[in-house]
């Protein structure tokens, strides 16, 4: 029996006290597609970095076609025929496709552009990739750049190809094409590792290795498993789609009356918006991105001021107050762009957790109370399961899911009356999404009025009591989440008015 193309045995890699990969063992045969499936931060990226020479494993063995390898740089990996297709393209925008590809593979003084181009065209033809070798990368669409990134790896006859979430930038057609290319590569005897968290793609692989907290929790043949089983393995428990609980709703907590916010152009960002959210209610905001979700959240939080109209919280008018005054009345705000608006990358977790409160409870005579900050961080890291070596870790080093937990931890403390969440689950995996939904329900049970904007309509329907739909800054209608369906919300999102008001 021939050796598998790649065999990884008991691979371990730690960063400080965080175990990114622990005792990872798996193999890939020539002509096989293996999928690495796991949540954000489960250790997939670290593993691929170990396989491509970017990181050196602490222990364990990597063998290629039966021969143990010690990879100490990307050059080693390339020399042994291990190719990586990066999730975020690593290309020179100012170079042509051809120039991007030949760097590193030419040995003479002058680049032999003619023969390199001939070879590239031949590869493009055999895999059915349509791209102009002499086009500058910055002039290409994002989808075409993905092909350029793939061609970098195809150009040097890789034996093992690692694809790191390659379909994130491709449309449906592009994804299909990618899987046709993968089939051809398999037929040519290339071993392929696909890193993804899309279940549909996982099911197209031959086998799946599921990672959780840095360890392989199981390897399954796709023919013998189901998406449900894989999800369960990935999160380590059963995921029931959370649905709203019938908490009795109280009186109106947050009320908007004819709120209008000016836009940059003729059209206002928000046009005559009126609604109210009750105690213990989750109010959803649906709409195509850019139809006023962000101005709505910002005007309630006091970041922007309405041109006209009144916003009140428990009968106190807040539309004239500043952000800090509003937040200290009991409003938490999870902003849309977590790194740009919710966190400071170069601050530690401890520091990020007190942002906005740094003049209040955490200050002592104009100086920060470090002990109190550390205690606060310690408590919240445990309570919100933030995976980080310590409270002093810089937030910029956290995964998207953990960064979002830091914002959650901070804002949930503040949200004693109102919680605003704009796209809180975007780009996160099911485990974190589930956790965030649980947090929202906890707030609902405490009697907080929750406003959530999301592009995941099914989630909104499952979570919310009522859903308001925005279209070009106008509230097209408010529907009862118990009685509505995707079609009705879809029509409203497209600008069709509701026939019967709720």
């Amino acid at each position: 029996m021939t050796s598998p193309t790649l065999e990884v045995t008991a691979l371990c890699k730690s960063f400080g006290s965080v175990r990114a990969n622990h005792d990872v063992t798996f193999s890939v045969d020539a002509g096989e597609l293996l999928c690495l499936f796991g949540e954000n931060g489960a250790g997939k990226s670290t593993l691929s970095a170990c396989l491509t020479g970017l990181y050196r494993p602490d222990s364990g063995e990597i063998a290629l076609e039966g021969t143990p390898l010690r990879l100490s740089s990307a050059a080693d990996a390339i020399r042994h025929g291990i190719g990586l297709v990066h999730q975020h393209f690593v290309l020179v925008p100012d170079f042509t496709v051809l120039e991007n590809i030949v760097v590193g593979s030419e040995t003479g003084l002058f680049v032999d552009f003619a023969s390199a181009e001939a070879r590239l065209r031949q590869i493009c033809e055999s895999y059915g990739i349509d791209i102009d070798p002499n086009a500058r990368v910055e002039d290409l669409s994002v989808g075409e750049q993905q092909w350029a990134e793939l061609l970098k790896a195809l150009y040097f006859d890789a034996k093992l190809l690692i694809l790191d979430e390659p379909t994130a930038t491709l449309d449906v057609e592009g994804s299909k094409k990618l899987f046709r290319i993968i089939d051809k590569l398999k037929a040519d005897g290339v071993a392929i590792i696909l890193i993804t968290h899309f279940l549909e793609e996982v099911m197209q692989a031959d086998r799946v290795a599921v990672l959780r907290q840095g360890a392989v929790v199981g390897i399954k043949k796709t023919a013998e498993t189901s998406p449900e089983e894989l999800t369960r393995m990935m999160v380590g428990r059963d995921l029931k789609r959370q649905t709203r609980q019938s908490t009795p709703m109280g009186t109106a907590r947050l009320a908007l009356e004819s709120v209008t916010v000016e836009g940059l152009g003729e059209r206002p960002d928000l046009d005559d918006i009126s609604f109210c959210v009750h105690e213990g209610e989750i109010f959803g905001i649906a709409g195509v991105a850019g139809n006023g979700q962000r101005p709505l959240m910002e005007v309630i939080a006091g970041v922007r001021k309405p041109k006209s109209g009144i916003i009140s919280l428990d009968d106190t008018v807040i539309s004239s107050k500043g952000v800090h005054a509003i937040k200290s009345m009991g409003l938490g705000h999870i902003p849309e762009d977590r790194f740009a608006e919710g966190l400071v990358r170069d601050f530690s977790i401890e520091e990020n957790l007190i942002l906005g409160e740094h003049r209040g409870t955490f200050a002592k005579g104009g100086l920060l109370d470090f002990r109190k900050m550390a205690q606060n961080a310690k408590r919240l890291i445990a309570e919100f399961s933030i995976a980080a070596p310590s409270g002093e870790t810089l937030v910029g080093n956290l995964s998207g899911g953990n960064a979002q937990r830091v914002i959650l931890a901070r804002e949930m403390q503040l949200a004693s009356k109102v919680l605003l969440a704009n796209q809180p689950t975007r780009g996160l995996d099911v485990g974190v999404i589930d956790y965030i939904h649980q947090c929202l329900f906890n707030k609902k049970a405490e009697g907080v009025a929750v406003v959530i904007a999301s592009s995941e309509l099914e989630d909104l329907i499952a979570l919310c009591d009522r859903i308001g739909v925005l279209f070009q800054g106008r509230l097209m209608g408010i529907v009862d989440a118990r009685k509505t369906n995707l079609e009705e919300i879809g029509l409203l999102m497209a600008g069709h008015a509701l026939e019967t008001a709720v």
Partner: protein
Amino acid sequence: MSELLSPEILMSIMVAAMGGATVILFAALGELVTERAGIWNMGVEGTMLVGCLVAYLVMAGTGSPILASIAAIGAGMVAGLIIGFMTVTLRVDHFVTGLGFNLLASGLTLFWFRSYVGGGKPPSYSTIDTVPIPGLADIPILGQILFNQHLLTYIALLSVPVIAVFLRRTTFGLETRAAGENPQFLEAKGLSVATRQYAALLFGSALTGLGGAFLMLAFADQFRPDISGGRGWLAIVAVIAGNWKPLRTMAAVLIFAILDSLAVHAQGVGVDVPYQFFLMLPYVASIGLLILIRSRSGQPAKLGVPYLRH
């Protein structure tokens, strides 16, 4: 004023401009390659000054312009190594490094020169001769301007197309540009960013040192403090005004050199405009060029951004 426009004087201005351009052109081409590799080297002025002093010392000691040039190249490379250690290895801010290095070079060359001279008179030597190219030097006008120059001027002019081809068509040129555009790309290809940035700095600083040597050998018979007189800064401006392209950078250098030459001739001819006005022209032009040519399309994307390896 009209005396300046007589054919003989104009001719003389152009001939002298080619020589003056040589100094700045060497430094500008060196800086261009360095910047294409992503290093915003602000230490050109200091590097040139060190090149000047070393060339002077060797020329005064041995009388050999070749040895003096080689020594200045070596001195330039030492300067490049220091700047490389600061910017590439220690990832210090490129501007701070360059400014610091210039101050160091200014003080160090003065100290070195003073201790060399002691209390006595600084030794001097005769400047090098031009090397007319047989046949071509006899062409009217153009022959005098282009083909009756110093050997190093020919080398500087030839370097322009050589560097253009180097950057476009050679493997090393492509890798140098990649280091300035997207260092992570090089790393992913298994190529060292630091090696290429050091190489670019060594090459660029060697050329700058050579420019300093030419200034000493062709124009000055002895060293003076801060003799480089802002030519290193003009080289940096020429690269920006030239949009990081060799040919355009040369054009910017020629503009500075012609204005500089004009200033010298204005003093000689005795124009009744204060000569300080003419002395100011190259520097006014440098600001003017930067205002007029605002296109930065050729600027390397990661120019001046210290690169941190994974």
